[in-house]
């Protein structure tokens, strides 16, 4: 382990060398993990090992190699299930959180009826807005929106007013990718249940950085992406409760999702197979499972404490510079810090920081309605992952000062 920095025990988990890209670019301060995380050696190795030693198509088990590949894929499903405290039959592999949400919007249990209401929040990612808008256009649904307070929290009183007998679904981000806010999803689920509505929780930003227990939380749907969870791109997960998924029609048709096909009529597999048409991203699932092992080996509580500590330090030091607005709640709850510097557009900030070797996200972060609410076009966002250290915070602060001097 690298020695602790500046007296903060958790300011360096000593994991940078486990990431080949970061090891090869010692000057890079990568602060865009919320967009996509870098990949640890063990994940790259797991995919390589699977392709070179156990690869064949799955669920076509007339030969032993296919059985081995199937075991690896289904083993990955079981791994996701234990990671989130769900059952394997509740875990559907998809391309990512975006596809998971589109799947639910398309195949909503019981189907949509005209006038059904879907409740979203003002801080949702476009991936948790646009699929619902498309469903609304097709089926005459009404979308209602929970507003966000000035300090970046949901207005829960407004949720109480919005929820009603017509509410079929509440879809909410667990942690806001733009603000870093940890939303009170337990309360939201409880209130939605009182009016008989279902809840989808978008865990794209929570799964990589904190312990999530779905048996305890008990949402109807939960989604996340592999690539933000230190796993491969093109793999993600929909978890649907075991009493909900069987009520849903298929999303895409094709091979592997059927029980029996004839031109008179086709019957479908039970979930999760029903929702996995065609050959899935088998190696991606294997890589994701290895990424989840990696996170558990480090410890989710440790990761959460580490990332939050870095974000907290970045937040308070940004504010001390003066002329900086930081969005999101004062009590930092994740590794995300979103800010604007007076007189410096976020894109110019990103370019100046890039020249100092600091990679941040700038712009609307796929949350245009949120920034409309704040009356700005977007923000600069630094997001911390498990490989970041206090040296990255230092570099961020120094870079912001360079921008302040340049645009003074």
């Amino acid at each position: 382990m690298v020695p602790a920095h500046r007296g903060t025990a958790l300011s360096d988990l000593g994991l940078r060398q486990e990431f080949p890209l970061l090891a090869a670019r010692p000057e890079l301060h990568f602060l865009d993990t919320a967009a996509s995380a870098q990949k640890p050696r063990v994940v790259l190795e797991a995919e390589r090992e699977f392709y070179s030693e156990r690869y064949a198509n799955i669920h076509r088990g007339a030969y032993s190699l296919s059985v081995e590949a199937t075991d690896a894929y289904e083993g990955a499903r079981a791994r996701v299930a234990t990671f989130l405290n769900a059952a394997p039959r509740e875990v559907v592999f998809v391309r990512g959180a975006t596809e998971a949400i589109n799947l639910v919007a398309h195949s909503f249990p019981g189907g949509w009826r005209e006038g059904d209401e879907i409740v979203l929040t003002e801080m949702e990612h476009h991936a948790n807005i646009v699929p619902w808008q498309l469903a609304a256009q097709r089926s005459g649904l009404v979308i209602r929106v929970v507003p966000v307070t000035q300090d970046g929290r949901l207005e829960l009183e407004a949720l109480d007013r919005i929820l009603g007998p017509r509410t079929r679904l509440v879809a909410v981000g667990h942690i806001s990718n733009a603000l870093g806010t940890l939303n009170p999803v337990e309360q939201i689920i409880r209130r939605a249940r009182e009016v008989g509505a279902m809840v989808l929780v978008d865990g794209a930003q929570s799964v990589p950085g904190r312990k999530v227990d779905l048996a305890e939380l008990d949402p109807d749907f939960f989604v996340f992406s592999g690539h933000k969870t230190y796993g491969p791109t093109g793999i993600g997960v929909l978890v649907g409760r075991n009493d909900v998924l069987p009520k849903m029609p298929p999303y895409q048709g094709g091979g592997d999702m059927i029980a029996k096909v004839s031109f008179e009529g086709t019957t479908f597999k039970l979930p999760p197979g029903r929702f996995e048409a065609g050959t899935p991203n088998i190696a991606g699932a294997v890589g994701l499972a290895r990424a989840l092992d990696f996170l558990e080996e480090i410890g989710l509580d440790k990761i959460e404490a580490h990332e939050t500590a870095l974000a907290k330090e970045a937040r308070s030091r940004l504010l001390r510079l003066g002329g900086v607005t930081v969005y999101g709640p004062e009590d930092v709850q994740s590794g995300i810090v979103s800010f604007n510097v007076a007189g410096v557009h976020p894109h110019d900030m990103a370019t100046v920081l890039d020249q100092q070797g600091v990679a941040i996200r700038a712009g609307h972060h796929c949350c245009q309605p949120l920034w409309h609410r704040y009356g700005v076009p977007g923000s600069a966002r630094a997001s911390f992952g498990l490989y970041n250290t206090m040296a990255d915070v230092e570099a961020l602060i120094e870079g912001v000062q360079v921008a302040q001097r340049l645009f003074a």
Partner: protein
Amino acid sequence: MSLSELYQDVILDHNRRPRRYGQPGEDYASAEGTNPLCGDSVTVFVRTEDDRIADIRFVGSGCAISTASASLMAEAVAGKTVAEAMALFQHVHDAAMGAAEPDEAMLGEVAAICGVREFPARVKCATLAWHTLKEAIAEAGK
């Protein structure tokens, strides 16, 4: 490639005090350009007399590069014929993309925005206003 090549004094000045900024009266043709990737938007207003850009204004929100580019463009093409403006657009486009060496004599102050050629992620910021100008001129010709 250095920050001072991208953020030249001319750019910083036009970003701080954009020229020809503001919404004019009804007798202007206009077009809106947006960059969906970053959310930048600019609306260019032109009033043509015969084949000449008699006046040009713009409004919008964007980074220093896109704001300065719009401001420099408005100053440069005001009073020019449409053909001259389009020739300038073509050259700015090519120079910003790195497909041509900037012709300082032709560009004047506008040459400053060609600093983006070393910053591929920012080329669209520099060219947004120019593409929008082309559309506004097309509107004026309708």
